[in-house]
């Protein structure tokens, strides 16, 4: 069996290519490619959500305090600077094809600050400490993902001729988008921000024997979001409660999975009928080993493997 080409799989994970029918068939019967795709998509989602992250330096007195508390020698008294240890940070961006190949073979470009202008990690709209206490995903401004469904004809024309290129939509809606959704909902409550909305949800959960929960963020092409909570009964039996909102398409079957953090294994825990469902977690399954809750859309073909087509996913955190 021929696996999907690595370059194509990466582009599919980026949300740039639609899979061909043959690739879709292959994904349905090849758990390796399906898991590879799941894992790559997770990487893309985290990578895109890192947009608003800008690295900051602690004050110089932090090293002084470390130095003093550990009783280090004068040889290392000076503040260690990233630039002094850079081992090949490229200063400029050569858009030169000749530079392309060797560039990726370069060693680590040491410090964050040394590479400075090379990659401006986003316009840092909300990296300030003030917002940092809220849920991680609430840092993205709602406007950043505004045109989620905009299908600019200009964009579409741009790729005329590339068979599967689908860029018309800007719907990768990764983690940051959930922020947008949260922000919209919060807006209804008076524009107080996602944190309050999230908190009010938590307040409602106080009475339930919830031991873990995950916010479920959408994958490219989906607008749904949701929450998964794990409830533990007095007899030790655990259940996942999945609650989705914004699910518009009802095509196919929806299956709920627990997945390892590195996507090296997964367990199906049942089919989701409608937006909400309770799913029994088999005793002996360690949630620390399977922290990801995933809802996928599955073709009705009797194939028990994950289709690779996830609607939402989130990581469980103990409460």
């Amino acid at each position, binding site marked *: 069996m021929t696996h999907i080409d690595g370059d194509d799989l990466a582009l599919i994970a980026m949300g740039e290519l639609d899979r061909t029918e043959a690739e879709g068939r292959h994904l349905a019967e090849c758990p390796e490619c399906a898991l590879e795709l799941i894992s790559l998509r997770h990487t893309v989602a985290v990578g*895109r959500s890192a947009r608003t992250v800008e690295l900051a*330096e602690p004050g110089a007195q932090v090293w002084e305090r470390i130095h003093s508390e550990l009783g280090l020698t004068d040889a290392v008294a000076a503040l260690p600077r990233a630039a002094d240890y850079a*081992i090949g940070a490229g200063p400029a961006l050569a858009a030169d094809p000749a530079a392309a190949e060797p560039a990726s073979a370069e*060693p680590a*470009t040491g410090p964050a600050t040394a590479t400075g202008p090379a990659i401006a990690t986003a316009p840092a709209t909300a990296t300030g400490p003030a917002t940092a206490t809220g849920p991680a995903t609430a840092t993205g401004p709602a406007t950043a993902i505004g045109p989620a469904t905009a299908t600019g004809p200009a964009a579409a024309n741009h790729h005329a001729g590339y068979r599967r290129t689908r*860029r018309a939509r800007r719907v990768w809606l990764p983690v940051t988008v959930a922020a947008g959704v949260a922000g919209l909902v919060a807006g209804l409550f008076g524009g107080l921000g996602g944190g309050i909305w999230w908190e009010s949800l938590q307040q409602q959960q106080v009475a339930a024997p919830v031991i873990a929960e995950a916010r479920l963020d959408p994958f490219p092409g989906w607008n749904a979001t949701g929450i998964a909570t794990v409830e533990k009964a007095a007899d030790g039996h655990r259940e996942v409660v999945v609650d989705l909102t914004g699910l518009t398409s009802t095509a196919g079957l929806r299956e709920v999975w627990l997945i390892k953090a590195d996507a090296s294994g997964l367990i199906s825990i049942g089919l989701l009928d409608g937006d909400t469902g309770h799913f029994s977690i088999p005793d002996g399954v360690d949630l620390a080993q399977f922290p990801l809750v995933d809802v996928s859309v599955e073709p009705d073909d009797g194939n028990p493997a994950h289709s690779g087509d996830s609607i939402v996913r989130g990581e469980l955190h103990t409460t």
Partner: protein
Amino acid sequence: MYDLQRRSPTGGHRSDVTALTEEDDHGRLVTAFLAGDEQALAEAYARWSSLVYTIAVRSLGDPGEAEDVTQKVFIAAWRGRATFQSSRSRLPAWLVGITRHTVADTHEARSRRRRVEEAVTFEHELSQADDSVDIADRVMMTDELQRLGPVPQRVMQLAFYDDLTHTQIADSLGMPLGTVKSHIRRSLNRLRMRLEANDDAH
């Protein structure tokens, strides 16, 4: 349930040869660090204090507390260096793991304080929503993106944040399509390895 070997369908993704020089460099630093060489501590601080600090400040929202966390993390790492298992994780992933725990402790201390001060549980419900894991992953990702070579870094920036297709990227950087595609695949796999190393380390 699958129990799959970690293998990529197209082979070779996981051990990207481009990472070799960097791995040698990392191995040298780890050896010196474990041997108690102060210079190695200084170098580790130079490389990763911004990673540790940024995770802490974004999670706690307080620069002062974040600096305390940064201080604690490097002191704990130095004093506990004998417990670092270089076969299991990389130094930055280990530091991020210590950061997570220290941040969680700080959140806990905070909510304890608040419970005492206010005798109301409202605030502490909020602080239970500790998203330090997500923050750590995102900060780690930013750090990794900046460690890519300048060209792959530019490619990924255009692909991730400017939402360009690989054909648009090829146009704008004047590169062959195949080169852009392979940059995207290699960078994505490298970021994934780092992310998974980060997830494994706690």
